[in-house]
């Protein structure tokens, strides 16, 4: 446990010693603000909720989370530090989990810095803060799922750009599987069971429940299994590199 924290601490430190963290935080906050208040018609909606805020997250994260995750393993491989790290007395899975956790904590921090949105709705009206809390939980899990996928693609290559693009494509699939235009298209030639199965793989379907204020164990399980699967795959990929 302690060794996981040691690695995670170093990773977090690495974000903040480079401009990456600050650039990311600023862009993330600017974009959430823009999408919520301008593109999301926050004020015109006339409702005391953060639906306009959360609704954009699957798309916003699509670009921003892979930007955080792309360096996780690609950078270690490029600079040769992976060899250093994995020859220290640490199991590969511990290193994978530690690096994932560090980035997830960083994303949680970014998400926490959106608190002015909560303040705003509470000042302007009387929102159901339970729904908002559920929305945050969902958003955090969504970020985790994307991040795990990004960690996986990051392990595939020593080129961060390639890792980024692969992650975006995979996350895009996770969105599109449940995106209405796509499911509509599917219903034309596939049976409803098939459509439902495909849609069940979508983060949007599961993310929506959180936005309604429901924390369903099935949705929790979905996000946690995406994370678990992607991290497991990361382990397999890294083992592959090590065996040559």
């Amino acid at each position: 446990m302690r060794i996981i924290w040691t690695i995670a601490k170093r990773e977090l430190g690495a974000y903040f010693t480079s401009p990456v963290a600050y650039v990311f935080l600023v862009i993330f906050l600017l974009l959430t603000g823009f999408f919520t208040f301008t593109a999301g018609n926050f004020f015109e909606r006339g409702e005391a909720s953060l639906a306009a805020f959360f609704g954009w997250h699957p798309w916003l994260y699509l670009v921003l989370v892979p930007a955080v995750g792309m360096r996780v393993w690609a950078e270690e491989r490029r600079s040769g530090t992976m060899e250093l790290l994995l020859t220290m007395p640490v199991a590969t899975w511990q290193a994978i989990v530690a690096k994932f956790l560090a980035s997830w904590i960083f994303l949680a921090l970014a998400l926490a810095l959106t608190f002015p949105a909560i303040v705003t709705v509470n000042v302007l009206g009387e929102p159901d803060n339970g729904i908002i809390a559920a929305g945050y939980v969902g958003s955090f899990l969504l970020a985790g799922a994307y991040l795990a996928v990004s960690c996986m693609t990051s392990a595939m290559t020593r080129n961060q750009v390639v890792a980024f693009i692969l992650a975006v494509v995979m996350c895009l699939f996770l969105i599109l599987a449940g995106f209405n235009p796509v499911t509509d298209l599917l219903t034309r030639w596939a049976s409803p069971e098939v459509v439902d199965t495909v849609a069940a793989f979508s983060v949007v379907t599961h993310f929506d429940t959180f936005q309604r204020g429901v924390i369903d164990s099935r949705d929790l399980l979905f996000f946690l299994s995406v994370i678990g699967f992607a991290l497991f795959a990361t382990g397999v990929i890294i083992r592959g590199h090590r065996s040559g």
Partner: protein
Amino acid sequence: MIRIENLVKTFGAKRAVDGVSFAVERGEVLGFLGPNGAGKSTTMRMITGFMPPTAGKVAVGGYDVAESPLEAKRLIGYLPESAASYADMTVRGFLNFAAEMRGLHRAARRKAVNRVVELCFLESVLGQSIDTLSKGYRQRTCLAQALIHDPEVLVMDEPTEGLDPNQKHEVRNLIRKLGKNKAIVFSTHILEEVDAACTRAIIIDRGKIVANGTPEELRQMSALAGAVTLSADGASAEKLSSLGRVEQLDGAWRIYPHEKGKASELAQAVVELVAREGWKVEGMYRERGELDEVFRRITLPDTVKQ
């Protein structure tokens, strides 16, 4: 401390390491020589548990690296190729991290960091970030990391690469000093390093061990070993050839003994001959043999050998 049996590593169809066996005990410094791509780094990666071997066994301190990797890794300090380290960290931060990874916390960590900082002369760059360091300091920082837990086994992949002659000298001295109570393996392709730091050397070529011995033994394999080089006024090949095969050099003669073991007798015979003939000796030297020549002879592909 390190025991390697029949180690094999294949990458696709290529056998990078092909049945390598050796052992290193405490107090030994093993130099690992070979041309580029001979399998040195791959072997070291298998010793340190980074790469699983295709076949064969590696045991460190009695622990099988494949079966109990964590126990084995705890005993090892490793300096990877080109001194890979986290470039965005400061030297202090990096060493603190390495110490914590080795389970050293608080006071123990401070003590360990201070010890290696002193050992590797890093005092002046402690607060500097690693990517601003010169190659020599970076190398020493990574070496400090490898030494942070005072490991019983030290594995170093080209520890002196990219250092200037003074720094090379320092690192070699350090290796020799550390070698007194550790088992050390280090790879190099600088042959003088073998003399400067090793108690034993292995030459590896195309994945196979082609020579294994003390630097002196390896040198004996040289064709030159035991030959006498004489530069003397009045000397003639005719007279000298009675002692051994003679080769004319630029202003000197080199006499090779008929048999390798008779080196000292040859030297004596030359002295006697010189005295008898009354030649004016300008210089006389008994060749120890050149590692360089041995290395080239056994690692050159057959087609290139004369």
